């Protein structure tokens, strides 16, 4: 498998605070990779910087091209897409307008096909297509955010905490769909606090603490690591002491 996204030795600072320190990762075609860790570990910062929302130091390349000179909009056009933590929907516009804008950079014909695919993946969105995005429930908003990102036919979808604030029962649904994306030829880079669910669908995983990757490996290895179990799978393994 060839590397779709390569990030090497990346540092990200807010003023004097270095939030991400020397992180390297890669995502191959048709792969689901997850980064787990507590909030504040730097996961969101890292995803945003890969997307170009913040500047970073280090090398990043996507589908073989250096991303340094590209701004967010160019990266979108290149096939990289981010579903951000706060979803950033167009709240006062309806579902269909939101989805159409997701296809802003692609041709009309491709957009029509994308729309069909998104509606198949999320039938709920089709039911609500004339409803304003801001009035959707949390789970529907997450679906819309993912749908909007998929409208641009990305090669790599980056998801930031898709389960945040959702009922466990909807979380299961969202993760099932993330798992299905691979079949549709989309790679996924998933940032999650819900380590258990993320490790279930991922091929590989990185564990992030205080701005650094402290562990990496196949999702299975990570899930069975005792340190991860104690620290991130937490209450699931009662009786174990924390590190």
């Amino acid at each position: 498998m060839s590397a779709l996204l390569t990030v090497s030795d990346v540092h990200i600072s807010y003023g004097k605070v270095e939030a991400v320190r020397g992180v390297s990762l890669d995502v191959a075609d048709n792969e689901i990779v997850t980064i787990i860790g507590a909030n504040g570990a730097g996961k969101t910062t890292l995803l945003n910087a890969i997307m170009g929302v913040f500047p970073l130091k280090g090398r990043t390349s996507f589908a073989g091209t250096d991303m340094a000179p590209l701004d967010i909009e160019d990266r979108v056009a290149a096939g990289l897409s981010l579903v951000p933590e706060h979803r950033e929907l167009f709240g006062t516009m309806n579902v269909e307008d939101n989805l159409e804008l997701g296809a802003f950079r692609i041709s009309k014909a491709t957009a029509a096909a994308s729309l069909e695919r998104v509606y198949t993946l999320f039938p709920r969105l089709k039911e609500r297509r004339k409803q304003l995005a801001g009035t959707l429930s949390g789970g529907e908003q997450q679906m819309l955010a993912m749908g909007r990102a998929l409208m641009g036919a990305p090669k790599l979808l980056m998801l930031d905490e898709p389960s945040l604030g959702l009922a466990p029962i909807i979380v299961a649904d969202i993760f099932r769909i993330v798992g299905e994306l691979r079949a549709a030829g989309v790679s996924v880079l998933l940032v999650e606090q819900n380590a258990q669910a993320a490790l279930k669908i991922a091929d590989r995983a990185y564990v992030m603490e205080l701005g650094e990757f402290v562990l990496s490996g196949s999702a299975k290895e990570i899930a069975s690591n005792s340190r991860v179990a104690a620290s991130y799978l937490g209450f699931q393994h009662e009786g174990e002491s924390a590190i």
Partner: protein
Amino acid sequence: MQRLPLVIFAALMAVIPLIPGIPPFWIVLLDNIGLASLVAMGLVLLTGVGGLTSFGQAAFCGFGAYTTAVLTTAYGVSPWLTLPASLLVSGIAAVLLGIVTVRLSGHYLPLGTIAWGIGLFYLFSKLEFLGRNDGISGIPPLSIGSFRMLSPDTIYYAIWIGVLLAAILTMNLLDSRTGRAIRALRRGHIAAEAFGVQTPRAKLLVFIYAAVLAGLSGWFYAHLQRAANPTPFGAQAGIEYLFIAVVGGAGYVWGAVLGAGVVIVLKEVLQSYLPYIFGGQSQLETIVFGILLVLLLQLAPSGVWPWLMARLSIKPASKKPDTSLKLETRERAAATSETLLHIEKARKQFGGVTAVNDVSFDVNAREIVALIGPNGAGKSTTFNLITGVLTATSGKIFVRGKEVENAPPQEVVKLGVSRTFQHVKLVPDMTVLENVAIGAHLRGSSGAVTSMFRFDRAEEAKLLAEAARQIARVGLTDQIDQLAGSLSLGQQRIVEIARALCVDPMLLLLDEPAAGLRHMEKQRLAALLRQLRDGGMSVLLVEHDMGFVMDLADRIVVLDFGTKIAEGTPASIKTNPDVIKAYLGAAA
């Protein structure tokens, strides 16, 4: 503010006119800088600190100047007697305009001030008794005994004493209970009101304060020029004062003085040298001035003063509160029999959407109750109904047996209900200590004037001591002097808990306190909450981490689409089929 730099600055300003051979013109410039500093200082408080942008300050200068002009020329009143009159007229004008304008949020306010600023300018230039466009001349100079301040270098001292006094009083005000309330305004009023700050009153206060400083400047101006006409009080001047504040650094008292210096000297240089370079082209200085301004903002968008301070790496001194000082505390229930919070069929509709649908539940004394449910289930709305941020469409809420009939947040917090927010609402450029001290707002009583003259110190020490104690309680003593904005989100949530504890609450409402915490930190938080409960406090919390909730809560209330679907002990909730179907899913 440290005393030494202030004394040095004062001494320096005192010596400048005595330097032999100093061009008299420089003194005129310094007089003008002093006058502009006064207005800009008001704007620092109003705009930079309080977040209320005003383009209309020049009009308040006009009130000050015309008041003394009319009183001295038409009625022969002594100039010193007109000083209080000038300040009073500016203040009253501010009250009238302020009542109308300060309640406007966001962008209405600056636009509104442009409009009445221009309206007042035209009024000055049309009114007969103000001399219309020609204005009033022949204003007598200031005098002490037989010493008449006729020249720019004699009134110089009066102006700069005024500036220094204003700066000291302004800094004293900012560093106080009232000052914290003002500084909290810019981050939105919800957090401030949750701790008892009367935000409309605080806004009006800064508005009046800024207007009185502008009135003082106008009064000096009238006696410096010995004349008053409408031009210096128009829209252009109002815009220029705002420039000065922004160029200097809109949040800093000394930025006002620095900004006044930069802008006035720059204008002067442009006016006197540009014609030499480009010939007598008209209005060239305005063009260059405008361009330089745009350029300056691109280079230092936060102003020159903070830029300079960062270069010199000067940091404010840290405060070490004496934690032996104590505030009075509430009496607490000894047993769990008392119902602290009673919610009866609370309902909230937004347009056609029912966010909270006839929800009823209780929280007893010494009890931890959790409110769970998916996002959008109405949990935060319920919090807002309890704390008075929102008014219920129908239903009743009782706190300790007393019905909270749509009381505003400032009243609810007096009953001993304090809260944290789902989206952290701290003031990022205030220290942890200052942020937490806002929580103790209602446990002090010092007002603006008391603070300006430093009569609030004994109470202030107690408030800070209480804040420091609560910070220690949540384990953040090491971060006490850091700016709140520099902490991680998880730590900021803990700071919010310390702030809520400063209220000395009976009931603590926590909105997702564990979000962003690691496993260990969550356990520490759980231990703290248990300890608070055992000390006689009750906790109502919203949380998504089921492990955390099931472990900690005595009782759980489950909301779904605004409706209560279950209530009971963690064990019964875990196995409740409705909860599993709507919320937990098979995974639990």
